[in-house]
């Protein structure tokens, strides 16, 4: 595998990792606050559709982005009402949200565009352009730095860079701010937060809503950055891969970045090589597709160190002395 190929694979890794990154951070924040969220997939999907739909009708990708985020936050709200206010089962609520998105996007798309549940192809300002970082062209021919900077780092849509920025941001908020302290506390022991006079409900809604925004970015990037429009089920399980990445990262932002890059790499490789010949054995494409899930199971099984979720995770908060 020559250098240029590697560079290109890393380049596409970064693209493919971005939606995973947003979604993984979303799950991370929600679950750090003690609300399990297996509805990432659904929120991404809804965001993907609405961002594409509005980007197409208004011709402005930024309006599309807003629409996507709003749609995703709306689903987050449902999740919050079900699992926080009415103390319902967070997992079931998540499952429901995934189906709701899978169904509604197609129903609405069909109703609006009559194109078999997809939006028309986006062009021009309806898509996120690829940004060239400063000096990208100048540096292109510098031996090592050149490819790394000009090819791998440069030339992505702005959301890729936003995603990368979200990692330190999430870390800082979680571990250096009051909000982060309370957020982590409510995921570990809501009673402590409650008796400290802070609203558990409020904090958890906050976290769930932030997750909504991040999933919105993930979906919008998928439909208006990576692709040029919405097609049904276009998230294709990325929400669950993100979930996997989050567990893989044991609910830590920087590790999450590492995990999504790994999974992005796997997808990039699978895209490029149908079957990978290791000499003694040929790995079929399906193996590469299944690998992230297999890896997650391995992690969960604790073979690569235990993954311990926040203590109050999944538990609706009920007062008791």
């Amino acid at each position, binding site marked *: 595998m020559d250098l240029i190929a590697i560079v290109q694979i890393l380049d596409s890794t970064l693209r493919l990792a971005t939606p995973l990154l947003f979604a993984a951070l979303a799950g991370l924040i929600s679950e750090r606050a003690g609300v399990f969220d297996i509805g990432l997939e659904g929120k991404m999907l809804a965001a993907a559709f609405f961002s594409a739909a509005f980007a197409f009708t208004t011709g402005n990708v930024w309006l599309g982005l807003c629409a996507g985020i709003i749609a995703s936050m709306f689903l987050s709200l449902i999740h919050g009402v079900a699992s926080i206010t009415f*103390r319902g089962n967070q997992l079931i609520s998540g499952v429901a949200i995934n189906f709701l998105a899978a169904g509604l996007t197609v129903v609405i798309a069909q109703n609006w565009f009559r194109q078999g549940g997809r939006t028309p192809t986006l062009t021009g300002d309806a898509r996120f352009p690829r940004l060239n970082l400063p000096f990208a062209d100048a540096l292109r021919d510098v031996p090592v730095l050149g490819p790394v900077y000009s090819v791998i780092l440069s030339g992505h849509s702005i959301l890729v860079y936003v995603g990368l920025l979200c990692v330190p941001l999430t870390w800082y908020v979680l571990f250096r701010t009051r909000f982060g302290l309370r957020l982590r506390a409510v995921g570990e022991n809501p009673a402590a937060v409650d008796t400290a006079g802070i609203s558990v409900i409020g904090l958890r809604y906050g976290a769930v809503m932030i997750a909504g925004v991040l999933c919105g970015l993930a979906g919008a990037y998928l439909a208006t950055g990576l692709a040029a429009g919405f097609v049904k089920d276009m998230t294709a399980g990325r929400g669950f891969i993100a979930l996997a990445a989050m567990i893989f990262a044991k609910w830590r932002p920087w590790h999450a970045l590492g995990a999504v890059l790994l999974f992005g790499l796997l997808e990039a490789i699978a895209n490029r090589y149908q079957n990978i010949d290791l000499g003694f054995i040929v790995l079929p494409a399906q193996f590469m597709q299944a690998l992230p899930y297999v890896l*997650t199971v391995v992690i969960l099984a604790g073979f690569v160190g235990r993954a311990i979720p926040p203590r109050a995770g999944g538990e609706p908060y009920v007062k008791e002395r």
Partner: protein
Amino acid sequence: MSNRRIPNWADVVLVPLFSVVLAFIISAIVIWAIGEDPWEATKMMVQGAFGSSYGWGYTLYYATNFIFTGLAVAVAFQARLFNIGGEGQATLGGLGVALVCLHLPWPHWSLALVAASFGAALFGAAWAAIPGYLQVRRGSHIVITTIMFNFIAAALLNWLLVSVMRPSGSMDPASARFPPEVRLPRLHEILDVFGIPFSRATPANISLLVAILACVLVWYMLWRTRLGYQIRAFGQSEPAAQYAGISPFRITMYVMLISGALAGMMAINNVMGEANRLLLNAVEGAGFIGIAVALMGRNHPFGVFLAAVLFGFLYQGGAELALWTNIPRELIVVIQALVILFTGALDNLVRIPIAALFARRRRS
């Protein structure tokens, strides 16, 4: 849940009933919002699903699938295990059926049915056993692992159908057709015996009876056998179960094996009874509908049966809608989602007011 008291019958009947009604009301709003007439749509669905023996046939065919997957989820729920791996387990079940039907010579369908059921159950159970084992022995969250196993199953079947089981020359990723001997009697053939005319064009088949039998057996197992007792005890309180000497490992494994076996057995209906060959994505999300069915059926086999028929109706009716109107089939997914949401996650939305009502009646 809420610590308010509410009579058991209300919790079992009223709560799911109102939840479903809520779900349907919102579905109606969706239909109306996309510019169709909910009333007309409903009529068309009912007509399409129950208006003819053809409709009935398909309704019952879908219901059969959902009974199996619904029971699978319900049994697991009884032990407080949330098995959302029905999809993958049913997929593997299909593989089991295919192997039995393709690679062994069968003189008569009845023998084939028994063997295929066994194969399906075996494969489904095996696929469920791994997450079960990881849950008890390594503490891996079974919800996540079963999700992962759904994807892994899809990839596995995909590879098998594309690279291994596809007959040479055939283009679509599907196994060869099963020999005619293993073709299961369709519902109309069975009804003919009693002189009841029934549409010959529907895939409803003898698996329906197997499914109903499964309902009875599961009920019996849960409420009449020691294993059932241990399962329910374990589900209600793990510390108490441990105190009673019910080993969490053993019970979790039993439950996941049974659950997976039930999910897998769905394959005798869709793979052996309908398609007569192994197709990609033959499960068509029935594994997930099992969740809705179990939730609606309050994890009771009888409830599961009713809920399964309801979803069979939704599916067949929905297919008709998609056929004759602009309402895409995904509308059913929306309804399914709403049912899961209201019966499974928002049940307190209904329970709390009902509880308040009873409280008031108690006072006066």
